[in-house]
């Protein structure tokens, strides 16, 4: 069979001097799902933009359908039958779904826009490719998952034969990912070719036929999905052995964190958490499982001192936390990796060094008689940058210049600079690539082994199952199940409790929490 798309030795240097693609090769066969994987910054999007005519290669050859081509702009690529859905959508929020789909290629009768025909065509397309979406509401009002379908329909409406999806799953919830995969399979069944960019390996293995792996701007290999496993792919992608397996806690310490009968109310007075009871031992990670919005994050905020409590008590080593403010809690050994690093965890405009010292402004080492010891602050930053291998020009660089993974490492470095007694962790690896994920997981288990009691919340069940020693499931603000982690515990089991289909008896919960 002849390849549909062939990129040969493509190179691209951005005006800033970044060599984003370095003699990259890509071969896509017709009718396949071809995944392109690599860590953030590997050059995947750049390669796709070159295929789509958004960027021009400095050198190299592009062969499409047997003929050498060069797309000077997206229009030409679209006319040739290539469609692309970007990481950031380009839809008009105030326009309806069908208007967005046909925009620029509207069906007309005479010079009039034929509304009925447009709606009918959009409905037919959405039926045919199993991309369910209502054509009438404005795009701004539908969820992200559906907006993505609108983008795909837009490409299909323009008769795309090849569909490029740049990190489509990054914005989707797990169920939506499943629905996307159904659509992708139906596209391929009807003769389309799909190029699928991602960096989450399980989903790549599930959906793709063939995989091209990129690293540091180069292609490091092409493999058939059925020939590889997650571990092999991860090693290719990161360029070294990655172990996303972490050891369980070795021995159980005494109870450190104790939450008793905790009630939390929202701003309107509606209950968010009700009668929470849990205990976390020293050197143990307790995973908080639950669909987002069921009270896990609020519990973490309440323990951190960022949210008021309606009733109940929180003790750390027998000391009542509730009367203490954030600073006092930090002073007795609380550390916290917050859910949203940009909104909460960092001052993006300030420097790396300033961010790293921000929680230690009462520490004699860095501040004496109200004066900053800039030398000590810089030295501390340099030491943390080294210890947590943060990639950054200098401690004086602004946080805003770092990649997501490195920003997160700055947060982790600051919070784990000293061994905490109680560590709160919320979404530690959201939007972070594999290499950094591995590192952050190791840091968290390191703090655990140093004797910290850890509360971990994550939207990624894989992460919770990999790290937690025990798990509790939240549903509508209550703890409905508790488990001691084991290899038998599956995401499916947890899922039934997360959705409220099943509930354990209070005795079972208590027994698992001892």
């Amino acid at each position: 069979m002849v390849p549909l798309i062939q990129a040969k030795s493509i190179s691209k240097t951005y005006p800033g001097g970044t060599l984003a693609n370095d003699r990259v090769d890509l071969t896509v066969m017709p009718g396949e799902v071809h995944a392109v994987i690599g860590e953030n910054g590997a050059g995947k999007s750049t390669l796709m933009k070159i295929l789509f005519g958004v960027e021009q290669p400095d050198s190299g050859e592009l062969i499409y359908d047997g003929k050498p081509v060069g797309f000077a702009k997206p229009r030409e690529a679209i006319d040739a039958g290539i469609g692309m859905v970007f990481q950031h959508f380009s839809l008009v929020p105030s326009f309806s779904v069908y208007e967005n789909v046909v925009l620029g290629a509207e069906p007309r009768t005479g010079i009039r826009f034929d509304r009925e025909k447009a709606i009918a065509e959009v409905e037919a397309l959405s039926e045919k490719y199993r991309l369910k979406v209502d054509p009438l509401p404005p795009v701004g009002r539908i969820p992200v998952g559906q907006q993505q379908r609108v983008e795909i329909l837009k490409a299909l409406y323009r008769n795309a034969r090849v569909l490029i999806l740049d990190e489509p799953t990054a914005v989707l919830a797990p169920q939506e990912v499943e629905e996307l995969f159904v659509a992708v399979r139906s596209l391929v069944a009807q003769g389309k070719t799909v190029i699928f960019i991602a960096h989450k390996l399980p989903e790549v293995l599930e959906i793709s036929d063939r995989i091209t792996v990129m690293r540091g701007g180069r292609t490091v290999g092409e493999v058939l999905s059925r020939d590889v496993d997650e571990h092999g792919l991860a090693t290719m992608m990161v360029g070294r052995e990655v172990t996303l397996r972490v050891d369980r806690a070795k021995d159980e310490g005494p109870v450190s964190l104790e939450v008793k009968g905790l009630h939390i109310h929202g701003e309107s007075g509606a209950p968010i958490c009700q009668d929470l009871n849990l205990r976390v031992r020293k050197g143990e990670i307790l995973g908080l499982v639950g669909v987002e919005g069921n009270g896990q994050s609020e519990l973490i905020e309440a323990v951190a001192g960022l949210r008021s409590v309606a009733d109940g008590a929180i003790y750390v080593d027998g000391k009542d936390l509730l009367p203490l403010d954030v600073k006092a809690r930090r002073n007795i050994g609380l550390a916290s990796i917050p859910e949203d690093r940009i909104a909460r965890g960092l001052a993006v405009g300030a420097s790396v060094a300033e961010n790293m010292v921000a929680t230690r402004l009462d520490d004699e080492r860095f501040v004496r008689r109200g004066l900053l010891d800039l030398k000590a602050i810089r030295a501390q930053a340099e030491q943390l940058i080294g210890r947590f291998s943060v990639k950054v020009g200098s401690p004086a660089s602004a946080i805003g210049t770092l990649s997501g993974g490195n920003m997160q490492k700055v947060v982790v470095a600051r919070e784990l600079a000293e061994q905490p007694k109680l560590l709160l962790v919320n979404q530690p690896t959201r939007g972070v690539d594999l290499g950094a994920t591995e590192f952050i997981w190791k840091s968290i288990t390191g703090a655990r082994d140093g004797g910290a009691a850890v509360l971990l919340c994550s939207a990624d069940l894989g992460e919770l199952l990999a790290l937690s020693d025990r798990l509790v499931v939240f549903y509508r603000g209550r703890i409905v199940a508790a488990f001691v982690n084991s290899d038998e515990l599956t995401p499916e089991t947890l899922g039934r409790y997360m959705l409220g289909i099943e509930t354990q008896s209070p005795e079972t919960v208590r027994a698992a929490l001892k």
Partner: protein
Amino acid sequence: MSLRTDPRFKAAGKEIGRAVAALAVALLVTFVVVLLTSQDPIKAFGTLLTAPFSSMRTTGLWIDEVAKLTLTGLAFALVFQARQFSMGVQGQVYVGALFATFIALSPLGATLLALPLGILVAMLAGAAYGFIPGYAKARFGANEIVSSLMLNYLAIKVVNYLIRAHLAPTGTGQLMTEKFPAQSIFPALLPNTRFDLGIVIAVLSVAAVWFLLYRTRWGLKLRLVGHNARFAEYAGIPSSLTMISAMTAAGAIGGLLGAVYVHGRAFGRLAIDFDGNLAFEGILVAIVARDRPLVVPIVALFYGYLRQGAQLMAIRSDVPSEVISIVQAIIILLVASSFTIPGKAFWVRLFRFGPARTVEAAGK
């Protein structure tokens, strides 16, 4: 790390380029306006650009204005760095001036204590006046823009009333107080000019504000709260307290400017509407300086020069001094909108006369 590659210097270079470009555009537009309205545009424009240097006296006027613009610019820069939009400098200037006047007109005014005491009292009064909108915001959630603007009007009206009704010499109908005793007026650094203690105070204040912001814990807290108040809360930095203290400190600088006004050789007394709205122009100075204290005096130097040039142009030619508003508006527009200086691609496109490649699908 060399100067060329240090990101901070690169950024600074870009900023300076931007400010200079904004100034050039503003002057160009001003020139067109002068060209259209004046009988003798070359002379008028020439006056605008050179007049401050025409004599020792005019240079003194310029420097006096630079000192005042620097102080108000510093006060604004301080609250802006904490991301508080208190507009209260003008009110603080008025209460500061009023309290300095009380000292000057009291028996103490004729003693050696007059100046230090006047300055101190003015700063305390300004600080108290700056504290109010901060406290109101922290306590009742009152918007600081609104409350500080109201406090400005209040201060101006009260001071003007007090001058008219009580402080002006009775029966004269004057709109100002008596001249202060010599001990209550800044000594001249150069005889017969307005070179006085004001510029020294401004320079010292620049150093003090810079030190507070970048070398003390208070300054770091203030900047962190300004960057991201939610982060500050999470890190254990009390953001309300920091915010109030920033507004109070800025108030002290406002009060200090009030003292510099009434003790300065330009006045040596308290007069109605004495600041001619200069206190407000600190907003422009702070915005153009991107709230950086060390840049504030540089901006004040340029802007003060243009202001002085415009005033002299109004006296010596047929163009009214209001043209300075054009300069002001254009600079604010350009700097605040963070326009970028057109790069290579722009010029290539412009001179190719054809549609260059455009990226239609906005993606990253």
